[in-house]
């Protein structure tokens, strides 16, 4: 395998995003392009308007749900591990990233070199997606969303227990959990089922389409009901039950119609007290779909990469720590990544 300095010749940063020149393909481009490989369905990675898209079948299904009017002229469905040869002597395949359903690392091989673009990823357990798979590589392209030593995500079960404990402490309060609609919502629901929660979930309308998509992929969340089916006093039924809504709904008028609502928020940011208070969360559930500090360092180690390119997040700290370990690390100046997406 070759060196990274030459890898920079064929993998470049362009305004549209990370670009593999010989195959004329972008990875997670921010603007519409001719040819794109998409790591996963979150909006800051999967944009509409590309002509030809390479992604897992699940990611393509998510994109179809999110952008029903978007119609790429070519969809290349790639299962994990399935290799495809592109122009310019480039081989591309996808490996599981453990981030959300269908999330993938894009593995690109060219001129005896391998670059792994990991997208968003995590190493913690998640019943809603295939676990992260280590791919040995020359260059590892990583996120740094939680790249500070203060971020150490507790086991999922530990945080779910907080919620369960609170429901027994406050059996008369509707427990409203703020979750992102894609991935977090479904992960929290499955984890609650595994913890023995057997009542119906009550879902904000913004969470329904993607939950149904997961169901179409064989996930069973048990019984759930749209909150909008209940008017006025009928919402009394939600006392002591779990209601799920997007984070923005926590502080708005909508949530005030729930009986004696207790606002909880499920996010990796909840580790920082001030951030939790900002969200007006009375219960901070540290549930993250990204790698924490130890896992970022561990993953770089596991891949054996001598070169690490950092896409977004707390770039400085990761760059510093990797440099100390003798790894060549540099920040890519990519535009369009959402700081708060989780």
């Amino acid at each position, binding site marked *: 395998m070759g060196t990274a300095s030459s890898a920079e010749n064929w993998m470049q940063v362009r305004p549209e995003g990370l670009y593999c020149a010989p195959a004329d393909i972008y990875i997670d481009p921010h603007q519409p392009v001719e040819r794109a490989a998409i790591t996963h369905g979150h909006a800051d990675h999967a944009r509409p308007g590309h002509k030809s898209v390479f992604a897992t079948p699940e990611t393509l299904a998510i994109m179809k749900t999110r952008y029903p009017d978007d119609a790429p002229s070519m969809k290349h469905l790639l299962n994990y591990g399935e290799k495809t040869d592109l122009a310019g002597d480039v081989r591309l395949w996808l490996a599981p990233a453990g981030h959300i359903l269908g999330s993938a690392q894009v593995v690109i091989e060219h001129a005896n070199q391998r670059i792994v673009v990991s997208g968003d990823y995590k190493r913690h357990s998640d019943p809603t997606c295939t676990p992260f798979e280590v791919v040995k590589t020359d260059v590892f392209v990583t996120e740094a969303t939680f790249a500070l030593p203060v971020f*150490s995500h507790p086991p999922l079960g530990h945080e779910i227990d907080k919620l369960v404990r609170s429901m027994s402490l406050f059996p008369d309060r509707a427990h409203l959990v703020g979750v992102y609609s894609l991935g977090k919502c479904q992960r929290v629901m499955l984890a609650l089922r595994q913890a023995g929660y057997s009542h119906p979930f009550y879902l904000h309308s913004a969470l329904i389409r993607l939950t149904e998509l997961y169901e179409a992929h064989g996930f069973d969340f048990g019984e759930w009901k749209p909150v909008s089916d209940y008017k006025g006093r009928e919402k009394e039924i939600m006392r002591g039950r779990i209601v799920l809504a997007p984070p923005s709904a926590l502080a708005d008028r909508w949530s005030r119609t729930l009986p004696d609502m207790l606002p909880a928020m499920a996010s990796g940011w909840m580790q920082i007290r001030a951030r939790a208070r900002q969200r007006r969360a009375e*219960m901070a559930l540290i549930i993250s779909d990204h790698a924490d500090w130890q896992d970022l360092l561990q993953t770089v180690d596991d891949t054996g990469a001598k070169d690490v390119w950092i896409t977004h997040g707390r770039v*400085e700290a990761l760059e510093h720590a990797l440099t100390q370990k003798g790894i060549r690390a540099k920040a890519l100046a990519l535009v369009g990544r959402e700081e708060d997406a989780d």
Partner: protein
Amino acid sequence: MEAFATMLDDLYFTNSNLAKEEILANYFRSTPDPDRGWALAAIAGTLNFDLFKRNLSKSLIAERMDPELFALSYDYVGELSETIALAWPVSENAVRLNRLPSLSEVIREFQSRSKQGIREYLTTMLDNMTPPQRWALLKLGTRGLRVGMSARSVKRTLARMKDVDLEVIEELWHGLEPPYEGLFAWIDGTADMPDVSSAIAYLPVMLAHPLDEEKDLERISPATHQVEWKWDGIRVQLAANGTEARVFSRTGDDISRSFPDLLGAVDFVGTLDGELLVLPEGPDGAVGTFNDLQQRLNKKKPSAGLMQRLPAHFRAYDVLNLEGENLRPEPLAERRRRLEDFMDDLDPFRFSISQLLKFENVRDLAAFRDEASASSGLLEGLMIKDRSSSYVSGRPKHAWYKWKCDPMLLDAVLMYAQRGHGKRSSYYSDYTFGLWNEAGDLLPIGKAYFGFTDEELKQLDNWVRSHKQQRFGPVQEVKKELVFEVAFDSAHRSSRHKSGFALRFPRIHRIRWDKPASEANRLSDLEQMVGQNRSHE
């Protein structure tokens, strides 16, 4: 310790006061003595010792963690204890505990250990704790717990548990000490109400309203009001029971340890309200500046030399009780008469009475206030009190007024910015500013983190982000281009500051987006303002 940390977390994240009180009551009901009493002390702020020095945890983590990573983490989190709690790297050869000790065991251990022992114990604790537990311990250890619960709310919790009025708890409170076993026994119904009759009690102080010049001045006349200087010392309460004397700050903190010279001179039984001052030139000389007093306040065990150089002095405003007689219900005129009689006998080196200022009309008052303004901060303004007022806690309407001097103003240049804490942690909201010296260099004169609106905060934050220069850990240097009009109550010479001056209570008065930095004030302007500081007795 587990239950304590969980309870603190619950309190911290809960918004409603009622729910907080419920959480605390549940904890008190389910936790044995003396743990619950120590927890009560921690939350009510009555713990009167530190378990370890604030710097200890910082030095421990410095041994274990890359300084750059620590600085980035601290910068991001914005709060030291939380940063350490989260980033603490557990040692591979850490001593492993099967369980955490109880809260009272932890306190006992810290109190009984040597300096080195404390270091080791804290390390072991941090190695064995979860981040929220570490946070609880670090906050407890340096008495920095803020869980959004006022002392009043804590007392209300106790009152509700016993189903008595809040006043009942208030009256008991200052006669009780951690870990409050007697109090809880009474609440549980297993003992009588604790007897606090002989204890030295801090009595809630009476406060003044700022004078509204439009509405209040016309109420004031020599027949109905007395007028005194408002000194720039600290308001204290001096209480003695014949065997023991204590001095409390306005908020009820016992600061006796810093003032043994003053307390040694107490030979009466009673409670006085007054101003704590220092007299570097003896009873006939000028009063020391607030900066002088600060040196005494900062020392828990003042040396003989310091006490000789800056002797503590008490200037009495009022008397609350004397020889066991409660004078608080009496009108001020009567209390003042009793105070004058009584003060006659005291040692003038340590005690004096606040002089009444003779006035006939509002013009005289304004003249006194001008005189105070010219005192370079030694006098903060005037106190104007209704002679018929009884002494009650809090801020009764139209009983006492304070008429403060106008603040001093200077145009200073923004030099450094730092991220704030809590909900301001994502903004640059702490600002250091300076004045030009003769050589054309800027020297910092102070720091402020309030005085602007949320909207201005956003604008300032933006400005800082687009005018960055070097960074020193969490401190961001900026281009020297933005002028603040800074208001402050007084300024003093200070050898601890590079500029040679320290400001009292500085705040941002106005942001002068329009003013070129070169036109900001010079240090020599400040020097002139400070001028002759010792003109007032």
